[in-house]
C-alpha cells in the first residue's frame, strides 16, 4: 500500500465520464425513443425487426457510456457480452425445441374431446 513515487495509481479509479458524452447519449436515447414510436405508427411489415434494432442501439449506448464499459476491464465486458450470448442461445434452443414439437402439440390438441 506504500507508494514511494509521487504518482498515485488509485487517483483515477473511475475515469469520470465527460458531461458532454453523458448529455450526448441522453439526447441520442431521447431521439431514438421518438424514432421508434414514429416508425411504429408507419405500420411497416417488418416493424418488430426495426424496433428491436433501435432498442439494441439504445441498449448499447447505455451499456457503453452510462455503464462505463468503454473504460471497464476486459473481464466485465466478457461477462456482459457473455450474458447476452447466452440469452441468444437460450432463445434459440427454446424456439428450436418449440418448433420441433409443434406438430405433436397440434395433433394432441386436435385429439382432445371438444370443450363445452
Amino acid at each position, binding site marked *: *500500500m*506504500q*507508494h514511494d513515487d509521487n504518482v*498515485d*495509481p*488509485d*487517483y483515477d*479509479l*473511475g*475515469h*469520470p*465520464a465527460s*458531461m458532454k458524452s*453523458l*448529455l450526448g*447519449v*441522453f439526447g441520442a*436515447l*431521447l431521439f431514438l*425513443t421518438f424514432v*421508434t*414510436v414514429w416508425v*411504429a*405508427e408507419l*405500420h*411497416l411489415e417488418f*416493424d*418488430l425487426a426495426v*424496433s*428491436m434494432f*433501435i*432498442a439494441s442501439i*439504445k*441498449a448499447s449506448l*447505455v*451499456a457503453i*457510456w*452510462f*455503464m*462505463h464499459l468503454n473504460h*471497464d*476491464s476486459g*473481464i*466485465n465486458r466478457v*461477462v*456482459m457480452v*457473455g*450474458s*447476452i450470448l*447466452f*440469452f441468444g442461445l*437460450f*432463445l434459440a434452443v*427454446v*424456439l428450436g425445441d*418449440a418448433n420441433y414439437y409443434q406438430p405433436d402439440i397440434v395433433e394432441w390438441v386436435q385429439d382432445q374431446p371438444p370443450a363445452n
Partner: protein
Amino acid sequence: MSATATQGSHEGHHDEHHDGHHDHPEWLAHHYETPRQQHEANKFGIWLFLAQEVLFFSGLFCAYTYYRMNNPELFKFAHHFLDTKMGAINTVVLIFSSFTMAAAVRCAQMENRKWLLRNLWITLGCAGAFMVIKAFEYSHKFHLGLFWGDSYDPAPEALADVAAKAGVAVETLPSMHQFFSIYYCMTGLHGLHVIAGMIAIGWVLRRAYRGDFNRYYFSAVDSVGLYWHIVDLVWIFLFPLMYLIR
C-alpha cells in the same frame, strides 16, 4: 501509520479513531490491499450480478417470444389496451433517470457532494414518477377487468373500444388473457426492480449525506448506478415489445 498516498487529502477518513482495526481508511475494507483492488473486485461482483439479471429476464423474454410466435393475432389486438403515450412518457422518465444516475456516479468520482445529492434525488424522483404512472396504468386495467389467466374478465366497453380500434367485430376478438399474463409478469417484475432500485438509491443517498464517498471509494454509487441502468435497459426492450406492437 503515516498517511499513505492512497489516503491522500481525505481528512476525516483516517482511521485513528478506529482502534480495533488495522491501518486502513474507513472506506477501504481491510481485506483489500488498495482502493483499486477493492474497486475492481466490487465491479466484477456487480457485473456478475447484472449478468444474472439479464439471464433472469431472458426467461421472460423467451416466454414472450414463444407466446407471440404462436398467437400473433392476440398481441396485435391486445396492444390496443395499452396506452402508447403512457409507455413513451415512462420511457423518457427512465432514460432521464439513467442520465442523472450516470451524472451522480460522475459527481461521486469527482467529489462533488452537492450535485451527487441533487442527481440522486432526481433519480429517486423519476423512479417514483415511473411507479406512479405504472400504478395509473394498472389501476385502469384492473378497473376494466383486464387481469391475467382465469381472472381475465374484460368489461364490454373495453372490448368494444378495442374492436373499434382494430376495425373488427367484437365477437371475433379472442380471449387475451395470455397477453395479460405475460404483460403483468414482465412489467410487474420490472416494477419490483424499480422499487428495489428506489430502496438502493435511498441507501446511497443516506451514505452520500454522511459523506462516505470520495475519489477512492464510490463503489456503492457505482454499483447501484449499474443496477439502475440494467433496469432501464430492460424497459428499453419492454416498451416496444408491449406498447408498439402494430
